[in-house]
C-alpha cells in the first residue's frame, strides 16, 4: 500500500527526515512511536504533501503510484486520509460543512440526515454540527470530530496523529471502536483491505486497536521496527534510551 524509500525532507534549511524507509502493506496497521521532535508528525504531513515540507531525496509510492510530488488533492483522491493532531479552527466553516466535504458533496449543502446520524455515532448532536469547525472545541471533541470526518471520507490508508491525546477513557474506547472499523481490524487478517499508521505517545489507543507492527522514530529516521508489544514494553521500562543506543 505505502512504500517509502530513502526519504529526506527539509523545512526551510532544516533537515527533519533523513533517509527514512517504511513499508505498510495492504490490510496492515502500524504504530509510530518516538520522542517529541523525532519527526513523526512531519512524516505524516509529508505523506500528505504539505507544501512547507520539501522532499529532498527518496520517494513515496502509494498503491504502486509515485506520489512524492503529487498535489495533496490528488493524494486524497487516491485514498489517503488523516486525523490531525491539532487541526486549525476555520471561522464561518461549520463542522457539518466539513463532513459534507468529506462525504464528497463539495458544497455547503444543508446538513442532511446521513450527516446527523454519523454525528450521533460520535456523540455529537445536530447543534454541534452548526459550530465553526474546531473553534473552541475541547481536546476530545477535536479528536472525535477528526474521526467523524474520516468516516465520511472513508480513505484506504489512514494516518492518525495522536488520536488519544487529551481524550478521556470513555471516549478513547469510542474512538478506538470507530478506528477498528475504519481499519478493518475486526475482519479476518486476509480480509483486511485498509491500512493505517498511528502516532501515539502513551499507547492508550493500542488497548483498543491492535496493530501489526511498531516503528520507533529517532532524529528523522526509523531506528527500530518490530513486534508492537515488545517495543512498547521496552519503551515503558527504559524510555527511548535503548532505541538511542540501538541507533548507534
Amino acid at each position, binding site marked *: 500500500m505505502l512504500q517509502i524509500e530513502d526519504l529526506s525532507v527539509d523545512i526551510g534549511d532544516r533537515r527533519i527526515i533523513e533517509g527514512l524507509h517504511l513499508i505498510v502493506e495492504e490490510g496492515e496497521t502500524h504504530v509510530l512511536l518516538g520522542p517529541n521532535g523525532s519527526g513523526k508528525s512531519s512524516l505524516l504531513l509529508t505523506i*500528505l504533501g504539505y*507544501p512547507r515540507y520539501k522532499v529532498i531525496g527518496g520517494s513515496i509510492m502509494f498503491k504502486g503510484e509515485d506520489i512524492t510530488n503529487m498535489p495533496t*488533492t490528488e493524494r486524497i*483522491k487516491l485514498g489517503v*486520509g*488523516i486525523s*490531525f493532531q491539532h487541526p486549525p479552527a476555520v471561522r*464561518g*466553516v461549520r463542522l457539518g460543512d*466539513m463532513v459534507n466535504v468529506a462525504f464528497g458533496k463539495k458544497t455547503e449543502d444543508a446538513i442532511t440526515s446521513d450527516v446527523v446520524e454519523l454525528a450521533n455515532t460520535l456523540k455529537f448532536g445536530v447543534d454541534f454540527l452548526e459550530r465553526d469547525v474546531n473553534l473552541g472545541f475541547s481536546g476530545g471533541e477535536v479528536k472525535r470530530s477528526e474521526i467523524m470526518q474520516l468516516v465520511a471520507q472513508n480513505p484506504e490508508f489512514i494516518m492518525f496523529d495522536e488520536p488519544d491525546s487529551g481524550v478521556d477513557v470513555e471516549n478513547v474506547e469510542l474512538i478506538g471502536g470507530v478506528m477498528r472499523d475504519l481499519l478493518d481490524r475486526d475482519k479476518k487478517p486476509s480480509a483486511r483491505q485498509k491500512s493505517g499508521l498511528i502516532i501515539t505517545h502513551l499507547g492508550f489507543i493500542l488497548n483498543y486497536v491492535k496493530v501489526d507492527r511498531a516503528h520507533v522514530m529517532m532524529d528523522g529516521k526509523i531506528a527500530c521496527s518490530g513486534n508492537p508489544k515488545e517495543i512498547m514494553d521496552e519503551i515503558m521500562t527504559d524510555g527511548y534510551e535503548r532505541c538511542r543506543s540501538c541507533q548507534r
Partner: protein
Amino acid sequence: MPEVKKDKKAKKAKDKTALYGTDIDLNDYSMDADDHSTISSLDEISDDYQEILPMCGVDPTGEGRSGSFFQLDHSVVFSDTKSKTMELMSTPDAVEKYDWLKGYTWNAVPVDMDKYTAQTELNQTNGYFIRVLSGAKEIFPLQACLFIGAEGIAQNVHNIIIAEEGSELNIITGCSSAHGVKSALHLGVSEFYIKKNAKVTFTMVHNWGKNMDIRPRTGIIIEEGGTFISNYICMEPLKSLQLYPSAYLTGENSRVTFQSILFASKNTKMDVGSRAFLRGKGSKTEIISRAITKDRGEIIARGHLVGESSGVKGHLECRGLILSDNSRIHAIPELEAKAQDLELSHEAAVGKIAEEEVFYLMSRGLTEDEATSMIVRGFLNVDISGLPDELAKETKRMLKMSMEKVL
C-alpha cells in the same frame, strides 16, 4: 435650528473638505437630470433595471413588504405603503406636510460636516421620509431603492426615518446604478430618530458601478431602551466609498449594532467605519466588520467607541483578509473612555488566508481553489442577528449573490 441658519451654515461649508476619503470636485458632476414620471407599480420599471432590483433586495411585486420607495436619479417614481401605521413619502413632501419636521432635519448629522452635507442641503434631490407611529410594529420590511440611471449626475438625497415610541421597523434598502452609467456621485444623508423602546433594523446593500463616488452621511439618535441594527454589504467594484455613520446612544439602555461586509477589488477604494457615542446609562454597542481586498483594492476599516458615562459597554471587531499582494487593508480601531467603570474592547486581525486552513480543507478532498473560496465564504458568513427570519433569509440570499459575483 431656524431654516435660515441651516442655509447659512451650509453655504459656509460649501467647500469644506471631508475628514476622510479622496476629495471630490463637486463641479465634476451635474445637478441636472431629466425628470422621470411616476409609475403605478414597480413592475413598470424599465427592463434594463429590473434585473438589478433583486440585488438590492427589492421585490418588484411588493409582496411581503410593508411599503416600497423607488427613486430614479432625482425623481421619486414610486412611493407606496399599505400600512396604516406608517408614513412613507419623499422628504420634501414631508417637510411641506409637517412643519414640526424642521425640528428634526440636521439634528443627527451636522449640516456643515463637510461639502457633501452642505451640497445635500443646498441642492437636495429628494430622498425618503419614513415614520412609524407610536406602538406600531411593522412586521414586513419596507423596501427603498435609490437608483442612478443618468450619466455624470450628483444624486443628493436626504432621508429621515422616525420610529416613534415603542414602534418597530425593518428597512431593506439597495442603492445601485444602471450598467451603462460611467460615472456619477451619490450623496446620501440619512438621519434616524429612534424613540423610547423603538427598534429599527436597517439592511443596506450597495451595488454601484465601477466609476461611482459614494459619500453617505448617517447619524442615528437612540433614546431610552431603543435599538438600532445596521447591516451593510458592499462587495462590487466602485471608484471610491467613504462613510462613517455615528450613533448617539443618548437614552438609558439603548443599543446599537453595526455589521459591515466589504469586498474591494479592481482599484476600489473604501474608507468605511462605524462610530458609537455611549452616553445613556447602560447603553451598549457592538461593531463588527469583515473586509476583503484583492487586485489593487483598498479598505480602511475604522471603528470608534466613545464611552461617556459609567456602566456602558462596547466591543469592536474587525477582521480583514488580503487576497493579493497589490491590495491593502488598514484597520483603525479607536477606543475612547471619558468615565470610569465602563467596558470598551476591540479585536482586529488582518492577514492572508492561513495556509494550514487551506491545507486542512484540502485534506478532506477539496482542491486549493475550492478550499480558498470556502474559507472566504466562511469569513464573510457573519451571523446577521436581530433581523426577522424572512429578512435574515433575504439578506443571506443577497450576500450569497454578491459573493458569487465576486468570487
